[in-house]
């Protein structure tokens, strides 16, 4: 990667030894959509470290917020089910939509935040790894079932899926 030299501009990444594992943030986003939070969120966090994102702390906080928010929404939904407010299949699906929208919103925010850094990284000659697609496929179609069944609790399913 080209040396920046002299003065450093605020939005420029500081890639380290892990930079060879950095991928386009589209893949963690797709991982979040197809595989679940267990795949997408840690991947965004790792990518931020790998590329040396100047906004990595903000990205980690967003990933953490996504998990905490999912946990709270999940707990709220379970309370509503127990109280009998959510009963029919359609009501459950409407209720689950809030959780999906929450995760997608944070996923898009993370994507946009990280994409700006990755574009600059590539602009100065940084090369992205191409293992994104296989990881998404393996995560979504092979590992997802195992991760979800790892803890036999509805709350776990709601948070990590």
């Amino acid at each position: 990667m080209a040396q920046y030299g002299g003065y450093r501009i605020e939005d420029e990444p500081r890639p380290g030894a892990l930079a060879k594992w950095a991928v386009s943030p589209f893949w963690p986003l797709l991982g979040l959509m197809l595989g679940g939070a267990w795949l997408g969120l840690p991947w965004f966090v790792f990518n931020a470290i790998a590329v040396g994102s100047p906004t990595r702390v903000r990205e980690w906080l967003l990933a953490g917020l996504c998990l905490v928010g999912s946990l709270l929404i999940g707990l709220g939904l379970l309370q509503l089910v127990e109280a009998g407010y959510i009963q029919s299949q359609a009501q459950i699906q409407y209720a689950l939509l809030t959780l999906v929208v929450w995760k997608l919103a944070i996923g898009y925010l993370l994507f946009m935040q990280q994409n700006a850094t990755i574009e600059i990284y590539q602009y100065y000659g940084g090369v992205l790894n191409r293992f994104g697609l296989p990881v998404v496929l393996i995560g979504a179609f092979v590992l997802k079932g195992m991760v979800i069944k790892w803890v036999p609790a509805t709350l776990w399913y709601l948070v990590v899926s």
Partner: protein
Amino acid sequence: MNTDYLLQLAYQRLQADHYDGAIDALRQLLASDPDSAEAHALLAVCLINLRRVHAARREVQLALLADAQLPLAHYAAAQVAIALRKFKLAQEHLTQLLDMEPLNPVNYRTLADLYQLTGRLEQSREPLEKALELAPDDASNLVAMAQFYRASGQWGQAHQFARQALQAEPGHTGAVVVLGHLLLREGDVEGAREHAIWALQENANDRAALHLLTAVKARSSLFLGTWWRFNSWMSERSASRAIVVLLLMFVVYRVVVITLTAQGYPQVAQVIDWLWLGFAAYTFAAPQIFRHSLEKELAQVKLSREF
């Protein structure tokens, strides 16, 4: 190296649209003189041109901190505010700028841009005329007038000003692009394409020329055309608004599917599911196809430059 020399070098490179070179010179300058307000402001202008808005905003803050009375810092601040769609803030900086530099046509053109972006097309006529009055032979002023008349639907006058701009500065990219758009409107797709290539030969990174070329490509394909219109519509919104729009579309889709299934129309819901899947696949594939065809066009431009 002398800081004055580096600053002049940066100005020259910026004028030639060589943003990387300008940034390199400014990096060297700021490494030895980190408090240079002018260097920070100029760096912000370069970064805005490369669409690095957040870094540009930081550079503007540093420039204004170092010298709050520097016109260039207010100009850069207005550009950053426009890019961030903070139009009120942009207006404030432009008002200060016009007080400081009432004879600079660039400032009037920026004010006109702001008016046009905020849907005040007719109001933008006055600053554009003022800019033209200050520098009647400046090709950029003539092009701005051509763009104004094109936006107003007065094609004849748009054509006339674009021609005048080309007389003032042969090969002016902006004028060529306006003429290309006028040809495209008349249905002359090949003529518009030639103008886009012509403009890209002058400057291979010109965004307006690329916009024209992509519009031409989109016109020749319904598939890409739909994507182009959707993308343009989305890009007119800020990032957060675009996210909201996408999520709203998703929510509407899901609510419709769930409701239809619950009301006993699972087959209709299935059709909508497939349509949504098609839409998702389309938005994923279209940019790749589009970029590929664009790269092919640009390869021709590179060849012509060598020629």
